[in-house]
């Protein structure tokens, strides 16, 4: 297919023979076009691109600076807020600690009081019980003694067969029992 020249491919083939030097020499039309195009680009760059980009960069710099400053002040504010909160928190913690301590002390004193009262009460109860007991014993001992005296008199009356002078005998027996009690003790 490409072995022979096809017309559409040769549409732009040079009609006259081109010399090597032709490649080095600028073509007038291209030179004019190049100058016009380059001049337009240059004026565009000069009058529009650099002013615009300068403005953009300046605006951006200002914006960034403003942002930065805002952020800085916000940071400072946040810092102080944080410090406030921390102080408050510490205060609250102290408060709580104090309250707990107070409660603990109160509890301690209540406990001590309760214990003391209980001790006192227990001692009183014990004492009363001891008193009750000794009173009872005395009473029992007295009644026992009287019983024993009566019994011994009865026994002696029976043995002697005559009524003894009861009151004097009674005294006698009591003395014996006392002696015995003293011996027993």
């Amino acid at each position, binding site marked *: 297919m*490409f072995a022979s020249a096809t017309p559409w491919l040769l549409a*732009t083939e040079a009609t006259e*023979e081109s010399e090597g030097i032709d490649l080095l020499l*600028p073509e007038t039309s291209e*030179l004019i076009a190049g100058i016009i*195009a380059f001049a337009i*680009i240059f004026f*565009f760059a000069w009058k529009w691109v650099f002013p*615009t980009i300068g403005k*953009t960069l300046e605006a951006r710099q200002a914006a960034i600076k403003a942002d930065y400053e805002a952020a800085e002040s916000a940071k400072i504010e946040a810092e102080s807020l944080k410090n406030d909160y921390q102080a408050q928190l510490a205060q609250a913690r102290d408060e709580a600690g104090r309250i707990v301590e107070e409660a603990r002390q109160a509890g301690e004193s209540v406990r001590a009081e309760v214990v003391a009262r209980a001790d006192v009460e227990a001692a009183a109860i014990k004492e009363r019980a001891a008193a009750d007991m000794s009173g009872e014993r005395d009473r029992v001992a007295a009644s026992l003694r009287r019983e024993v005296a009566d019994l011994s008199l009865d026994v002696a009356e029976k043995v002697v067969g005559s009524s003894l002078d009861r009151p004097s005998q009674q005294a006698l027996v009591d003395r014996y029992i006392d002696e015995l009690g003293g011996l027993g003790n």
Partner: protein
Amino acid sequence: MESVILAASECDVSQEIICAPQDVLELFFFKDALFTIGGFHFTRTVFLIFLAMFIVLGLLYFGLRKGEKVPSKFSSAIEALVTFVKEDIAIGIIGPEGVKYAPYLLAVFMFVIVGNLFEVTPLINFPITSRMAIPLFISLVTWVIFVIVGFKKNGLRYLGDLIWPKSVPVALRWLVGIIEFVSTFLLRPITLAVRLFANLVAGHLMLTLLLASGWIFMSSVGDIGVRSIIGLPWFVFGLGIYVFEIVVAVLQAYIITLLSAVYVQTSVHPEH
């Protein structure tokens, strides 16, 4: 692909191993004008020059139009480009007074980079900077700028220091002076123009020959059978060069801008 295939249309695939056009220069001439106004031929190249201009204007305009606080990706890329030319090239090389030359350098950079990238743009495939008109014009403008700045900043001492350098032994001054004179006033503009031009011509030639050869051999498989496999390495190699040419396009745009700045700087501070 038309402009690529154009080159080697008369290739005899049964005889040759690479399809070179009979006259390589055909690749760079678009003789038939779309229309002509008083000797001005509006050819495809002229059209591409204006297309490049509109692309540059469009990129700059749409990239910088809004100037938002938080730029989009496209905007920040264009901004970075403009800032790069201004800060790194103009101010970084010429010094604080380089701001004055920033618009010129930006125009050079944008125009040349777009013109170079036309080389690897599908459907265009033709670098406008491979025509001598544009590199020559840019290097002449740079030449005029640095000569004028040199004389304005230093007066006649600019020329005097150049051809009679004080830092060189007396016996050698005339020789160094001649070399400096020729190098500054003749070689600088020529090399500045030819460097860009030559790189793009070479790139365009390589891409065209390799890709066209590959395409022509592979598509004539019906005529030459298994021999058409020769096109495959050509095509693959061409694609490798294609990537390389993208780098070259950007680098050459950077270099011509950088050297323009350096030449202006040597006129602003000739003692360096």
